[in-house]
């Protein structure tokens, strides 16, 4: 018992070790074959036993009719009792020549019944001639009719044993009738052989077939794997070839391609960002480095030194502010910033930011027009909100023509607090509106030089707004102006 258990555990472990290493096609084929093997084994067993049953029933019927005949000869009607004496005079040999019969019996026992009558002590009282010196196997003690398989002279026979009960209910002896089974047994043996041989063959064929079918049906997966393996950062633009059928594999391929699209896009964006950031940092650095290098090559006038140093300081300040913005962006993007959202006095914050922006606006004689029609309250992180407003308003100032006005409106719409900033500036081309929140985006490269921005302000605005669940939208008409709209989440 223990040993068997050990054996079973060992097999279990081997199974667990092998299964994960098996390829999918082998595993599919294996499971399928095992399941089918059970079914086929069941069907074969049923077939065998049905044939077996049919064959024996036929013999039993033959034996029964033989008994009936003998009893009829003995004048036993229906279920009358049969004493030993009743059968003493019944002819138990087949009609026809005895010798001939005998001969036949010696040669082949075809269609021959052997009949034998024994007393209750097992002593043979009578027997048919064809038994010659042999006797049929007798099992004493049975009080009912027994059908059994037995052997007679080495050959299989079907035999019935009928107890002979007299009037007093005492078993006086037995009537034994047997028919040879040879052909039937051969049929059964052949059937058994065929079934046993064909079983492993069928299973093997089935396994090979299933394996090949499974292999064929998962070939698209292998293609997917091959493509995916070839994929590196450098060739993220490769895509998996779509299968013809719109099946699960089609969906898998589509999903992977979709994922690759998004990865590629994100990767391109990151690459672009890195390139932009490096360009933005290297340009002033190159200017400062070159200017100073040229400056120290020769002794110069005092004023010359001063102007060059002033220029370098200006460039360095620009670099410093770019680095500040980049770091800010990085901090917000890492999402480690937790906004402290609270109910704030929106109109107060608007006033504060407008006051802070006024000196900048005054330089270009731009006026602010603040409209307050809302509740004046919103849910936001006050510091972050002010940074958003500062960025948008300073942008508005930057891109507005001198002498124009900027409208800042605070309102309440659809149960939500909103705030919009509208300038009368140059506007943003419609096709570029979606890109304004991208890092390093500028409406026009050449203009950025005079305005001095890096194109990071609005991406910072977007990040800050996202953190606070504030929706930012932008509308613009070329040469008419741009409107940025903040929609605050419901409190």
């Amino acid at each position: 018992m223990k040993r068997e258990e050990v054996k079973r555990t060992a097999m279990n472990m081997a199974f667990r070790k092998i299964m994960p290493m098996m390829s999918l096609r082998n595993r599919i084929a294996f499971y399928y074959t095992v399941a089918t093997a059970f079914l086929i084994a069941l069907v074969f067993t049923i077939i065998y036993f049905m044939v077996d049953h049919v064959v024996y029933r036929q013999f039993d019927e033959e034996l029964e009719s033989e008994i009936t005949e003998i009893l009829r000869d003995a004048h036993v009607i229906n279920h009358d009792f049969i004493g030993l004496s009743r059968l003493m005079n019944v002819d138990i040999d087949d009609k026809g020549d005895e010798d001939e019969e005998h001969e036949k019996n010696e040669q082949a026992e075809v269609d021959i019944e052997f009949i034998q009558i024994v007393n209750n002590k097992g002593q043979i009282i009578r027997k048919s001639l064809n038994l010659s010196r042999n006797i049929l196997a007798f099992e004493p003690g049975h009080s009912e009719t027994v059908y059994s398989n037995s052997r007679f002279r080495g050959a299989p026979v079907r035999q019935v044993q009928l107890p002979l009960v007299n009037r007093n209910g005492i078993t006086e002896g037995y009537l034994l009738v047997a028919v040879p089974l040879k052909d039937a047994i051969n049929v059964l043996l052949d059937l058994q052989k065929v079934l046993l041989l064909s079983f492993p063959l069928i299973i093997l064929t089935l396994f090979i077939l299933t394996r090949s079918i499974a292999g064929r049906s998962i070939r698209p997966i292998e293609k997917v794997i091959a493509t995916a393996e070839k994929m590196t950062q450098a060739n993220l633009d490769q895509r998996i070839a779509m299968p013809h059928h719109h099946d699960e594999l089609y969906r898998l391929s589509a999903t992977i391609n979709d994922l690759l699209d998004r990865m590629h896009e994100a990767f391109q964006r990151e690459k672009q960002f890195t390139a932009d950031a490096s360009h933005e940092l290297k340009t002033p650095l190159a200017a400062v480095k070159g200017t100073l290098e040229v400056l120290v090559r020769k002794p110069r006038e005092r004023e010359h030194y001063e102007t060059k140093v002033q220029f370098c300081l200006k460039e360095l300040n620009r670099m410093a502010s770019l680095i500040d913005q980049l770091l800010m962006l990085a901090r917000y993007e890492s999402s480690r910033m937790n906004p402290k959202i609270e109910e704030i006095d929106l109109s107060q914050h608007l006033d504060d930011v407008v006051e802070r922006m006024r000196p900048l606006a005054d330089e270009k004689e731009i006026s602010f027009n603040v409209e307050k029609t809302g509740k004046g309250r919103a849910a936001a992180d006050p510091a972050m909100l002010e940074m958003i407003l500062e960025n948008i308003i300073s942008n508005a100032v930057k891109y507005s023509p001198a002498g124009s006005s900027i409208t800042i409106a605070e309102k309440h719409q659809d149960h939500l607090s909103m705030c919009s900033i509208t300038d009368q500036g140059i506007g943003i081309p419609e096709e570029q509106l979606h890109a304004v929140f991208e890092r390093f985006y500028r409406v026009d490269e050449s203009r950025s030089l005079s305005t001095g921005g890096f194109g990071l302000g609005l991406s910072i605005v977007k990040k800050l707004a996202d953190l606070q669940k504030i929706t930012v939208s932008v509308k613009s008409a070329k040469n008419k102006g741009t409107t940025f709209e903040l929609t605050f989440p419901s409190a």
Partner: protein
Amino acid sequence: MRLLIIEDEPGIAGFLKDGLEEEYFAVDIASDGRSGLDLAMTNEYDLLIIDWMVPGISGIEVCRQVRKAGSLVPVLFLTAKDTLEDVVFGLDAGANDYIKKPFAFEELLARIRVQLRDKNQGDDSLSAGDLSINPATHQVFCNVNEITLTPKEFALLEYLVRNKDRVCTRSRIIEHVWDIHFDSDTSVIDVYITFLRKKLESAGCGNMIQTIRGVGYIVREPEMR
């Protein structure tokens, strides 16, 4: 030697112009691709320094157009793009060299000298007869006597010696030694030639510069005696 710089960053264009002019180059600046290409097509420059990312036509495109027009002028890319692909792409577009920002000014000078170097000579030095010129240090020697020249005189002599045994027309001299802002009054050449001749004479290298009447000037390698 006359250079064209196509660069939109005033900070960089500024020090390049200052520094290169101090190195006796005549320098023109274009702040966008379009005007840069126009200048490169209409003037004969000895070298183009092009920033890749300039407004309008990109530096790469300018370089391609210049090459398409059949010009063999050396082109030096000056850019913040620094990936391997960018460098290869730039060089394949027809550039002769590629310098990444930020760069050392001395390195830029050395690379410019490489591009201007005589194909038949291993180093930068120029000579004609007893006269030898070191473009890196701006020293001029007649045998062992050093001759002190003003930047314009040096540039003029350098141009003539670089093109020795060839006639340098007055208009070519103006184009290569003076920058675009110079009013094309070529009589200024005669003034500088006179100064140069005097200085060469006193050092023992007289008669180096010969006048081709009505055309220009020539520096000849003296016949082997």
